[in-house]
């Protein structure tokens, strides 16, 4: 197996473990509090709910990506730089 790929997998496993720990806190806190508010929007403010849905899912994506990047950087495992695709 490629040495870079091995290092990549090791980095990923470490990242996944820390990520899982953060997720537990996330489920317990954020989703619990958001649940009631979102249900209210779903029932009473459907238009606002539609845009909040898109905003939330996009924001969570960027937030979680930043989180995993920071975890990876904090652990000290750096990913090898990648060149632009389609060009050698």
């Amino acid at each position, binding site marked *: 197996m490629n040495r870079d790929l091995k290092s990549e997998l090791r980095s990923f496993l470490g*990242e996944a473990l820390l990520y899982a720990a953060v997720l537990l806190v996330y489920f317990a806190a954020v989703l619990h509090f958001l*649940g009631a508010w979102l249900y209210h929007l779903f029932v009473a403010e*459907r238009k606002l709910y539609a845009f909040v*849905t898109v905003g939330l*899912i996009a924001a969570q994506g960027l937030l*979680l990506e930043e989180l995993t990047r920071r975890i990876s950087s904090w652990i000290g495992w750096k990913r090898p730089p990648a060149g*632009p695709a389609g060009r*050698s």
Partner: protein
Amino acid sequence: MNFSISQVHIAPVYLVLVGFAVGVLGGLFGVGGSFLAGPALFGFGLPMNFVVGTDLAHIMGKSVVAARKHYLLGNIDFRLGGLMLFGTIPGVECGARLIERLKRSAHVDEVVGLTFILILVTISLFMAWESWATLKKNRSTVAGKKGRSSNGSAKEDDRSVFAFVAHHVQRFHLPPFVRLPASGIPRVSFLVIIGVSFVGGFFSGFLGGGAGYIRMPSMIYILGIPTRVAVGTDLFEVIISAGFGTITHALKGNVDVLVALVMHTGAALGAQFGAVLTQYVSGTRIRLAFFPLPLIGALIIAYGLWAKHAVTPGAF
């Protein structure tokens, strides 16, 4: 965990695991993965109308992460993605209108299901044959050239035995023409791009989901886009079409955003893993690994039709 919006009880770990699997597929192949996530959500007990809308929301969130990753890796051709929107959006509309017409007949599920199976099996077999033939050709070429670097360049790794089709398409004299420097294409007809994106959009509207399983191969084999750029640009297209679909379905009350958010936590990690893997796997091998996925979708739909299950093919 109780999801009050859709009134279902699902263990979050199942959603996270399905999200992770779908995220890897998206990051590696540029597909939405709805052919896997849709049936899984249905299996967890989510009503069908929520399956369609929630899956679209999840696809959009996952695509944002994967597309950003591909953007950082230089895998998105924004000019191509922008031009394709002119074909994708009318295509989605035409596909959705055809579904509305078919709904008036009694056999909409059978027509859509059989079309889906035919397309998925054709794509799968074609990609398997093409990737296998290309790998075989590459091996014989490398073996015949002593002293050449064993790694080869990214472009050489991405050669296809079907490349002559893209070369012919790029020579079509159908003005206006556009340049796609990010994809290494000096000149291609704008109408060809519109045609390819319209077909992708049409199947997205007709069969549901992001239709990456048809748009991604079309970009590679017809337009001649390098595989990694096709994957990244396809994800960019999915953000637009799935974002539009999410808003529409949310307005109709078909989206449980909490289910989408939980599923997306797994997808965010999976998408990164899949995107990073593309840097270690050649374009040809990515295409070879892709071929079983449409077959899985075809099997799910065939089972749904056979069992007269409530799985609506248009939902996936």
